[in-house]
């Protein structure tokens, strides 16, 4: 069953086309990694899923609701899709626990006690329960990103979007974030992950989407993608990023 469905999605910035007829889907419980050279439109594509980026033609259906449609309650749809950003984007003026409480209280209407209990159990899960009363600025990058994952999970999302979650991290902190993501995937979370971590892709992903110049060039199982990439561009990309 398709959880997220892209039908001929195209997007322009003025005259410049950033997405060209992107068609693919992410099934329930599936982990899809999106990769490609920088500027290939992968971040833009993932941001279209929850309407952070508008697109001009085509359709994206999330859980049988069309993202771009006028009658869609976008805030409500967004609350069902967790998103993790490259630069964490924790709210610096709120303590860690309050960061995780915010959406639960303001959007889901949970009481503060219930929300806090949920926040604490999620913090425990990402190994940060001792940091609940700190401000984000007092945590390392890896810790901040784990809090950001907890914040997204607190909304009980039906799918999670990761936009280059480890690109802004020091190398020694990448694994602590990838471990949390791997665990999520094992639990059957539907995930769409933009990343350059090919190790993560080959271990965890079910499918790999390769994008170049705004087009989905390759959309294959990970075995096919890493074993016998069909397009020249994917071969080049893989040889560049795997051989260093």
């Amino acid at each position: 069953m398709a959880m997220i469905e892209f039908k001929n999605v195209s997007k322009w910035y003025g005259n410049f086309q950033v997405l060209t007829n992107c068609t693919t889907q992410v099934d329930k419980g599936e982990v899809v990694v999106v990769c490609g050279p920088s500027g290939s439109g992968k971040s833009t594509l993932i941001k279209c899923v929850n309407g952070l980026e508008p697109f001009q033609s085509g359709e994206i259906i999330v859980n049988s609701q069309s993202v771009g449609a006028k009658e869609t309650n976008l805030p409500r749809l967004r609350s069902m899709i967790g998103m993790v950003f490259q630069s964490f984007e924790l709210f610096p003026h709120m303590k860690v626990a309050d960061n995780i409480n915010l959406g639960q209280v303001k959007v889901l209407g949970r009481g503060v006690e219930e929300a806090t209990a949920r926040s604490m159990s999620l913090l425990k899960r990402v190994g940060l329960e001792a940091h609940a009363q700190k401000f984000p600025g007092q945590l390392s990058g890896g810790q901040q990103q784990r809090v950001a994952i907890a914040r997204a999970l607190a909304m009980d999302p039906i799918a999670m979007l990761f936009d280059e979650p480890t690109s802004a991290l020091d190398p020694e902190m990448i694994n602590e974030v990838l471990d949390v993501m791997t665990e999520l995937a094992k639990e059957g979370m539907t995930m769409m992950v933009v990343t350059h971590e090919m190790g993560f892709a080959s271990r965890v992903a079910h499918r790999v989407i390769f994008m170049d110049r705004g087009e989905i060039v390759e959309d294959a199982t990970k075995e096919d993608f890493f074993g016998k990439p069909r397009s020249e561009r994917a071969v080049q990309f893989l040889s560049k990023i795997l051989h260093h």
Partner: protein
Amino acid sequence: MFSGFDFDVIQRSLPYLWQGMMFSLGLTALAMTGGIILGTLLALMRLSSYGFISAPASGYVNLLRSTPLILVIFWFYFLVPIAVKHITGDSYAQGIGPFYSALIAFTLFEAAYYCEIIRAGIQSVPTGQVSAAYALGLNYWQATIQVVLPQAFRNMVPILLTQGIILFQDTSLVYVVGLTDFMGAASKVAQRDGRLVEMYLFAALIYFIMCFFASYFVKRLQLRITPPR
């Protein structure tokens, strides 16, 4: 050198000057509060992507910022009652009195300046923060109130207070509508007792001390509130 002067006049008129000072501080506080609230709304309007929302706010700000404050005070005191009479046709309509005229004039005038400060403050909040708020499902007002404005105001507190210090000095203009603030009180005593030099020196000293220490406090605050990032 000061033999011909009578500094005792200050002590004799202290209660009256104190009243004036309370008036100055009260008007400053009220106009600042109103100005910041109205200025915030204007700033949000100016930042709207809808022309029919941003254009009126821009027009308002540009108009008031190119008008002398004293003219705005006059306008509210003398012209608004006439306009009200004209519009309502009630030739006995009264003005709202000098205090409310001055308060409204100051609030509206300061709002234009606060708007520009607050707009810059809002723009200093990274767009990723707004995206993160929206991604959680917050709507425009929730994202603005919970995420954007707290960070914007934190960045702006020093400059908002500095604008407040300027406003405090500007409140001396209320003499034009017959209100007695600290400066007005000093001036009246000076003319009544013929002690111009003493009173104006004293008034200058008090303004200097208050504004100097307020600025010093703002500078200290600025160092303390720089948020950990």
